[in-house]
């Protein structure tokens, strides 16, 4: 049992930058993240936008450490405001406290009331005046310099990052920007957060990657050869990322006219033998339901990645929530067993998406990989991930039919595993018609009681009998714990940190992060929780995971749920009190 509660807490640094349309707050964030990475550290970056499409206010929140870090910061240690236009929109996302230092452009507006009331130290600087002295420069670059100086980030890392981001615009642009950065670095001499300089840098290679890109990479590693999709926030980046590398790997991307088409294209391509996927979010997933059922009934491998956002309906397209779990589990009409898998953080999205694609191939069925806006669109500096050594693949009939197996090829042959050899177009003597109607082993439509029951059971059996190994959950057991917290997806990292902290304070709590949600490893889970008090933590309004675990008798009847809707991710501190309260109630 790992002694995870004895770790010392790694150093952290939380920086945020905001500004109205065109000020370039996001650019500062991207360069800063890359520069800190180049300096040998880790970090993540999330973004927030006002409702305006472009030219509206925006903000970036960065969280740095000398270890891989996926949680959001509890509060912003350093906030840099390029202006104060509509800053109140970010009140939820950028928590300021008396420990915050707020540096702001002071030539125009005073800080709004909520900033003054936060108790933060306020420091106005005249960025506009500075850029006037450097022809062609912009205030965000001065701000970049200020932040670098404040956190102890050396100039050459900024320069290298700038080179990477702006290099293609020409050396002059880079030089002008660096002049502004230098001006910023020179502006303030106090460096209260200079911690970075004292941290222990790594010299190992690291990746700068979003969770959506991680999913793209994982599926490519898994052998993806076809993707079809219709754009939707926050999933579009997955296919945008794939556009080039998929073709490099000999695959194809098809931009569909709608999600109905996308899902059916995936099924068509997969029928043809290509490991295939689509990516979407709630509204699009809703449109794929019928075709997803076809993949189940006709036993066609298909991976659907759904990146959850706030719901219901159009909801909150740019923010995160874990409220589409019910849909992923239950939306198909009829008894339609399939797989629902979710990565627990950004980094493991690489491997879990590779696994998901491989499982769809091996089990010849629909796999829904569930992530969310936070997991998908947060950008992170992470250690490179080794490719998962999977040998799963699609079962095919022997290429050369022998008399006894192939006289009448039975595409839906009842086998011990429930998995039938699937021929691919081009294989002589193995022609068949894939069928979404209830059918016989050869695929002929049937409405008879026995055929129906037999193939319903075949399809549930193939999924239930499969050995999913250890990946089904991440377990952090504590010796002698009588309390177990269960969570999933993007809530995991915050829950983990909260639990670790409580462990550290002496509370014995085990933690289970579920990856394979359907088929639920209900017996294993029940065995782990049977003498435990259980709390399920999830980010939605109706406690969807908790209800599901109860329905499957996988947790005790007196289990409780801490379920809160989005659209803001849990921070570890949000969870300490609820967990404590639950523990008190329970003792």
């Amino acid at each position, binding site marked *: 049992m790992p002694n995870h509660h004895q770790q010392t807490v790694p150093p952290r640094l939380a920086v945020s930058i905001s500004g109205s349309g065109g000020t370039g707050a996001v650019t500062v964030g991207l360069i800063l993240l890359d520069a800190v990475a180049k300096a040998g550290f880790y970090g993540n970056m999330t973004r927030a936008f006002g409702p305006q499409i472009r030219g509206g206010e925006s903000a970036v929140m960065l969280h740095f450490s000398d270890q891989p870090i996926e949680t959001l910061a509890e509060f912003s240690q350093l906030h840099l405001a390029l202006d104060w236009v509509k800053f109140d929109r970010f009140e939820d996302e950028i928590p300021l406290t008396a420990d915050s230092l707020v540096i702001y452009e002071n030539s125009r507006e005073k800080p709004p009331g909520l900033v003054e009331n936060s108790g933060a130290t306020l420091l106005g600087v005249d960025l506009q005046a500075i850029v006037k002295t450097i022809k062609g420069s912009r205030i965000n670059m001065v701000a970049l310099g200020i932040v670098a100086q404040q956190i102890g980030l050396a100039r050459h890392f900024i320069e290298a990052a700038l080179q990477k981001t702006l290099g293609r615009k020409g050396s002059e642009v880079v030089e002008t920007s660096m002049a502004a950065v230098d001006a910023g670095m020179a502006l303030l001499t106090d460096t209260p957060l200079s911690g970075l300089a004292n941290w222990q840098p790594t010299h190992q290679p690291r990746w700068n990657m979003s969770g959506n890109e991680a999913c793209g990479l994982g599926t490519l590693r898994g052998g993806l050869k*076809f993707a079809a999709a219709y754009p939707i926030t926050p999933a579009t980046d997955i296919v945008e990322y794939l556009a080039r590398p998929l073709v490099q790997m*000999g695959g194809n991307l*098809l931009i569909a*006219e709608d999600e*109905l*088409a996308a899902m059916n294209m995936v099924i068509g*391509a997969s029928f043809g033998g290509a490991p295939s996927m689509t990516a979407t979010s709630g509204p699009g997933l809703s449109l794929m339901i019928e075709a997803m059922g076809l993949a189940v009934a*006709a036993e066609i491998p298909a991976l659907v990645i759904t990146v959850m956002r706030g719901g219901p309906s159009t909801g909150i397209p740019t923010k995160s929530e874990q409220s589409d779990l019910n849909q992923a589990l239950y939306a198909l009409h009829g008894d339609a067993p399939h797989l629902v898998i979710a990565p627990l953080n950004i980094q493991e999205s690489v491997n879990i998406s590779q696994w998901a694609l491989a499982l769809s191939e091996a089990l010849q069925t629909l796999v829904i990989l569930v992530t969310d806006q936070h997991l998908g669109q947060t950008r992170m500096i992470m250690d490179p991930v080794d490719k998962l050594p999977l040998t799963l693949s699609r079962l095919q009939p022997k290429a050369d039919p022998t008399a006894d197996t192939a006289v009448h090829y039975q595409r839906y042959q009842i086998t011990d595993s429930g998995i039938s050899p699937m021929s691919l177009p*081009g294989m002589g003597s193995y*022609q068949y018609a894939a069928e979404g109607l209830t059918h016989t082993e050869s695929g002929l439509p049937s409405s008879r009681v026995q055929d129906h029951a037999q193939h319903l059971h075949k399809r549930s059996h193939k999924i239930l009998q499969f050995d999913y190994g250890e990946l089904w959950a991440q377990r952090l057991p504590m010796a002698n714990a009588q309390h177990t917290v269960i969570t999933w997806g993007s809530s995991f990292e915050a829950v983990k940190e909260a639990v670790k902290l409580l462990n550290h304070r002496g509370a014995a709590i085990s933690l289970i992060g579920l990856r394979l949600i359907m088929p639920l490893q209900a017996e294993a889970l029940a065995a782990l929780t049977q003498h435990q008090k259980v709390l399920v933590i999830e980010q939605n309004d109706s406690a969807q995971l908790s209800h599901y675990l109860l329905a499957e008798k996988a947790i005790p009847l007196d289990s409780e749920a801490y379920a809160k809707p989005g659209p803001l991710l849990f921070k570890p501190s949000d969870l300490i009190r609820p967990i404590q309260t639950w523990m008190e109630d329970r003792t």
Partner: protein
Amino acid sequence: MSVEKIPVKKARPNDYTSEHHPVWCPGCGHFFILRALTKALAWLNLDKENIGLVSGIGCSSRLPAYLDVYGFHGVHGRALALASGLKLARPDLTVIAAGGDGDGYSIGGNHFIHACRRNMDITYIVMDNEVYGMTKGQPSPTSDPDWHSKLAPKGTGLARFNPMGIALASGASFIARGFSGDPNGLTKILTEAIEHKGFSLVEIKSPCVTFRPEQKDWHHAMRLMNVTLTANPMEAAQAIYGSDGFDTGIFFQADMPVYEAEAANEKPHSDSASMESIEKALLV
């Protein structure tokens, strides 16, 4: 059905039929389309295992099970999307999509116009009986405005959907009308359609003897293979709009850009080399 000379080649029409007897009503037009299709395949001497035949849902969409090729009986209205995925993933296959007027022009209308626009090398066979046969007689987009049915006791009052006109406006590069009662003409049209490089719409009038018994009269009304082929869209438009629906033949065929798999021509490197360069791009 008239007996025809089959060219001296290896394949025969019956090579392409499966052992299953169609569930269609006796006399249904769809039988003759099945026959004409197998003849066209035999004429073209295609290998059965290299044919992908996909469909939606409807009487017509039952077609795939009756051929001994790689078939897919999908969901209602999505045959063309399925076919597009299949063709892009497997450019080596001859891909045919088939279905009814309800499947293709009502619920499947969006895929229809976008498949026309993509102009992928797919042959689309619509077995048009101007009715939803499978669901027992509701008006389809091609039904006459005054055809009475339970669902529309006074008729829909709607002008007929013009599949060929819409296909032309949407970018299809081969547009023909056939008649199930004209095996020779139909076989010829289907042969040409499959051979044509690009999206081919073959709109086939196929009587539903059960819910539209009056369509038996089509035998008298159809004018067989009387249409003049053109590659000029404006001329084709004139012929399509000028037709009362009973002219048959190839209205339009043109050489237009075909959407194709990009990957095939693209792959200079090994998979592992490609993967390596993809991962390299992620490094800080």
